[in-house]
C-alpha cells in the first residue's frame, strides 16, 4: 500500500500498534469492563449518588470558572506577545510554559502557601472576605494555573498569521478599533480561541495533583471527581471508582471530539477565508 520506497512500515506500524494497544488501550478497556460489570442500574445509582453528583458539579463549575479566567487572560497574553514589543517579552513567552513543566503537586503546594490565610496573597484577600485556600475558589485557582498555557498557545500562531491589510481595509472603510476587533480580528482567531478554551476546560476536568492540596477536600463542597475516584479506591470500593472514572473518561472523549471538530471547522474556516 505505501507508495514510497522507504522501508520499515511494518516494523514501525507493528511497534506503534502494539505499544498503543498494551500501554493505552488495554488499561482503558479494563476500566470500561469493570464499570460495565456493575450493570446499568447500579452504574446509574453510583454515578448519580448525592456525593458523586456534587463532585461532578464542583468539578465542572470550577473548570468553567478557570476556563473563563484563562479565556480572558490567555487572549490578552497572546495579544501582548504577538502584537507588542516590550522588554522581557521573551521571558514572558517562556514563563507561559511554566504550568506545563511544573509538576502538579509542586504547583499545588505553592498555590496553597500563596493563598493560605498568612500567605503572600491570602493575607490581603482574607480580610476582604475572599477565602481561596481550602475553599471552592482554591480549586478554580489551581485549575487556572495548570490550564493557563492552552489558550495562549492556541491563539498565538493564528494571531501571528493575521496580516495588517485586512485591518487597514476595514479602517479605510471607516471602522473603529473596537469594530475592527469584533468584526475582523476576533472572527479570524475564534476557532483557535475556542479550541484553546476547550483544551483548558478538558484539562481542568481531569486535574488532580494541583487541586487536592488547595481544595480542602470536603465532600459536597470542595471534593472534585478525580479525588472521589481516589477515595473510593482507598475504601476498596472498586466498582464505584470504576464507574466514576468511566464518566470522567467519557467526558474526556467528548471533549476530544469537540476539539477535533473545532479544529476541522477552523481548517475549513481559514481555507474559505483565503
Amino acid at each position: 500500500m505505501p507508495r514510497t520506497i522507504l522501508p520499515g512500515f511494518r516494523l514501525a506500524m507493528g511497534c506503534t500498534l502494539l505499544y498503543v494497544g498494551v500501554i493505552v488501550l488495554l488499561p482503558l478497556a479494563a476500566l470500561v469492563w469493570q464499570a460495565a460489570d456493575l450493570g446499568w442500574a447500579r452504574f446509574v445509582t453510583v454515578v448519580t449518588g448525592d456525593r458523586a453528583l456534587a463532585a461532578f458539579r464542583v468539578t465542572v463549575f470550577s473548570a468553567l470558572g478557570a476556563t473563563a479566567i484563562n479565556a480572558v487572560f490567555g487572549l490578552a497574553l497572546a495579544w501582548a506577545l504577538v502584537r507588542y514589543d516590550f522588554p522581557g517579552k521573551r521571558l514572558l513567552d517562556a514563563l507561559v510554559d511554566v504550568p506545563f513543566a511544573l509538576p502538579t503537586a509542586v504547583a499545588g503546594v505553592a498555590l496553597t502557601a500563596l493563598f493560605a490565610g498568612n500567605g503572600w496573597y491570602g493575607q490581603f484577600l482574607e480580610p476582604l472576605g475572599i477565602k481561596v485556600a481550602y475553599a471552592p475558589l482554591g480549586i478554580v485557582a489551581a485549575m487556572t494555573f495548570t490550564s493557563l498555557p492552552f489558550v495562549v498557545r492556541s491563539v498565538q500562531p493564528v494571531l501571528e498569521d493575521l496580516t495588517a491589510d485586512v485591518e487597514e481595509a476595514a479602517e479605510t472603510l471607516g471602522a473603529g478599533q473596537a469594530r475592527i476587533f469584533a468584526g475582523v480580528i476576533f472572527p479570524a482567531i475564534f476557532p483557535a480561541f475556542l479550541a484553546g478554551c476547550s483544551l483548558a476546560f478538558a484539562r481542568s476536568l481531569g486535574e488532580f495533583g494541583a487541586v487536592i492540596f488547595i481544595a480542602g477536600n470536603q465532600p459536597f463542597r470542595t471534593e472534585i471527581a478525580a479525588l472521589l475516584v481516589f477515595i473510593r479506591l482507598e475504601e476498596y470500593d472498586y466498582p464505584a471508582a470504576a464507574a466514576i472514572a468511566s464518566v470522567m473518561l467519557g467526558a474526556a472523549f467528548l471533549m476530544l471530539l469537540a476539539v477535533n471538530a473545532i479544529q476541522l471547522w477552523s481548517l475549513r474556516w481559514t481555507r474559505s477565508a483565503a
Partner: protein
Amino acid sequence: MSAKRRPRVGDGPVFRPALLAFVMLGAALLIVGPLLIIFVEAFKAGLGIYLSNLAAPDTVHAIGLTVLTALVAVPVNVAFGIAAAWAIAKFEFPGKGLLTALVELPFSISPIVAGVAYLFVYGAQGWFGPTLDALGIKVMFAYPAIVLASLFVTAPFVAREILPVMQQQGSDEEEAALSLGASGWRTLWSVTLPNVRWALLYGAVLTNARVMGEFGAVSVVSGSIRGVTNTLPLQIELLYQDYNAPGAFAAATVLAGIALLTIVAKLVVERMDPDRAG
C-alpha cells in the same frame, strides 16, 4: 516584525499600556508567584536546614526512585515516539487520523483515570492480577506499575514534537540515502534522526519532566509506601501532610529546578532550530 509600522488595532496610547500592565500583573501573580514561593519557603530556615531536608533518607530514596523511573520510561517513549512518527509521517495508510488520535489520547485523559485503569489490569481484582500473583510477579504497588503509569501519561510527547518536523521535511533525503545504498536503519540513524534532532531532544526533555513530576497516575498505582514506592511528587505530598512544609518545599525545589531546565531547553532548541523559531 518591522520596527516601523503603521499603528494597528490595539496600539492606542491607553489600551496598549493598560493591556501590558494587566498581562504583566497576571503573569507575576499566576506564574512567578508560585515559582518564587517554592524557593522562598524551602530556604526560609537557611541553607543548612534546606540541605538536611533534602538529605532525609526517604526524600533521597524518592529522588532515586524517580530517576530510576525516568531512566526506563524516557528511552522507551523516545523509541515509541520515533516508531509512531516514522509510520505516520512517512507512509500513507487508511486510519492514519485514527492512529494519530490514539497516540495523542493520553493527553486528554485524567492521570487519576489512567491510574485506576492500570489497577484494573494488574491489580489483585484486575485482569492479569491473579495470574501475575500466582507467578510471584509483583506489578501493582511496585516499581513496574510506576513505570507503566508513567509510560501511559507521557506516551504522546516525543511523537508530537517530531511528527510535524518529519511531515514538513518529507522523504526526499531518505529516498536519496536509500538509492545510494544505505540500509533502512542507517537512513534512520544518519538522515532522519539528525534532521529532527532538536525536536527529538525537546520531546525527550519534556517526557523526562513529566515522568519525574507525575502525581495522579503514580499515586494510584504506587501505593505510596513510605521509603519504598514513593516517588518525589508523592514524597512532597507526604511531607506536606506530615506538616513538614520546609521538607516538602525542599523536595519541590528539585522538581521546580527540573521544570526550569526544561524551559531553558525549549529556548535553546528554538534558537538552534530555525524551523521552530516562533
